[in-house]
């Protein structure tokens, strides 16, 4: 008799026993743990990692560009801060968008919302992570800008100028975090990566243009614009002229363009089916 070669299969070793455990009702998952997991999920994919890495890379490129091409007279800290701020204003909202939409576009929400059956907690944890990442990224950006200012002025031999106050920096961080929350809101509202990213650009590029044209063509709108144009209202944060009226503008425009759609988005997330 010829022997039949038996292929190596799982049957070559016995199936391991898995046993149900009955030790009563477990403790509730603490919110800190949900936040920790959500933070890890922002870094643990190749795209997530490179998105984070792109913050540092963009900072370095922007700083390098200022040192190379900015006229010596403009080699001041605020120039560096402005140059770095531009890529950050694009990258940070993308990070916020993808942290939300991935659960739907990649369908990982099926597991996420099964392990944490309260969607509001997951969304809240994601928001905390997004804001945290935004603030840390901005601090990194300021640090890179400071080093750029030191190195740039040393190379060109110009005077070191620190022309941004602590308050200016706080406002810039706030402005970027608000931009990030707009991205986050669009992610919650649309729950599709491509759709949310496109809407973000409509939000940040198309709307301001329309409002600008409207304001220049229609006198009645000129006075109204600060109250209804969220981008315009945020602009005051970046040029450091925030006073009582500007805060009120920001609050009203933010309620229209950020808070209201966020409430709608959250309601949809709570009710929608996760497939």
């Amino acid at each position, binding site marked *: 008799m010829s022997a039949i070669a038996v292929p190596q*299969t*799982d*049957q070559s070793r016995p*199936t*391991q*026993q*898995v*046993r*149900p*455990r*009955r030790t009563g*009702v*477990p*403790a*509730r*998952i603490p919110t800190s*743990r*949900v936040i*920790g*997991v959500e933070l*890890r*999920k922002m870094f*643990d*994919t*190749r*795209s*997530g990692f490179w998105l984070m890495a792109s913050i540092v890379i963009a900072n370095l490129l922007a700083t390098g560009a200022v040192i190379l091409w900015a006229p010596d007279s403009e080699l001041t800290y605020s120039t560096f801060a402005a140059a770095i701020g531009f890529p950050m204003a694009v990258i940070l909202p993308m990070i916020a968008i993808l942290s939300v939409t*991935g659960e739907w576009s*990649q*369908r*990982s*929400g*099926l*597991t996420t*919302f*099964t*392990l*944490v*059956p*309260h969607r509001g907690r997951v969304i809240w944890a994601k928001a905390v992570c997004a804001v945290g990442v935004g603030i840390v990224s901005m601090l990194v950006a300021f640090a890179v800008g400071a080093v750029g200012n030191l190195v740039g002025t040393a190379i060109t031999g110009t005077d070191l100028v620190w022309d941004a106050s602590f308050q200016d920096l706080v406002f810039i961080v706030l402005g970027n975090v608000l931009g990030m929350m707009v991205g986050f809101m669009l992610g919650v509202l649309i729950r599709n990566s491509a759709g949310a990213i496109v809407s973000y650009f409509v939000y940040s590029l198309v709307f301001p243009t329309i409002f600008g044209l409207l304001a220049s063509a229609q006198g009645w709108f000129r006075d109204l614009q600060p109250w209804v144009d969220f981008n315009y209202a945020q602009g005051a944060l970046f040029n450091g002229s925030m006073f009582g009226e500007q805060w009120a503008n920001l609050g009203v425009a933010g309620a229209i363009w950020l808070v209201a759609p966020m409430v709608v988005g959250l309601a949809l997330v709570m*009710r929608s*089916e*996760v*497939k």
Partner: protein
Amino acid sequence: MITVDSLTKKYGGFRAVDEISFTAQPGRVTGFLGPNGAGKSTTMRVMAGLTPATSGSATILGRRYADLPNPGREVGVLLDASAQHAGRTGREILSLAARTMGLPRHRVAEMLDVVSLVDDEPDRRVRNYSLGMRQRLGIATALIGEPEVLILDEPANGLDPSGIRWMRDLLRGFANQGGTVLLSSHLLHEIEVIADDIVVIGNGRIVADGTKDELLEAAGTVVRSDDADRLAHALADAGVTGTRTSDGAVRTDADAAHVGRVALAAGVALTELRAADGAGLEEMFLELTAETQRETSRDDQSEGAAA
């Protein structure tokens, strides 16, 4: 223990799940059988809190899913093995689940071992996984929290025969130790070999529900004679209703002993007399499947209606 009570899920006017009730008992494997589109996945998604029910309820261990404080520790759920971020490694996905549930890190390696994801497989990204590997990873995610209850939607999909055998042994062992297992399939055979209890669903309604033995018993008797016409007459005269199968046998709901006595009294020589061995279940299932073959039958139906 899983209890489903008068559960209904409507999409507009369409009743995807229509007033279904059943229980999955601890210590038993409950097979949830139905053709594609019958409402199995919708029911399971409602159980896991992913789809809101229109009315009725589903509870696990006596509580609604949303009221489970740490669901992964009490119920393992696998609804779609492909629903994972393609850019994460298998190990990472399992680590995230373990961290969410608050489990020690060594559970990850243990579970990878249990589901035989070996060598470099745990560290590959899921986009490079075969469906079978994804199923194993999904089963590992379901089991990592040592739950009491398992809810698995088509877990055998994509597994090779040895993998199916492995999973069957795994679930059998789990149920034998007091666990509750609910698994769905659109394949009768798959359910037959593993389930203790079977719930059959078609078009959103439960069409049969019982232990496997009951459902197979209810299938009746197959009887055959060289003289099929005389047999049919004899049975009809005795008040035994039956149907002629395509190969000349008669299938009836009467039990074999009664059919044998009728044939003896009529002097009909039988060539075969046996229990129908789940043929009834299979037939019922085939009917259900045929009904839901919408693409092919719709034209026939509309023509029939016009005629």
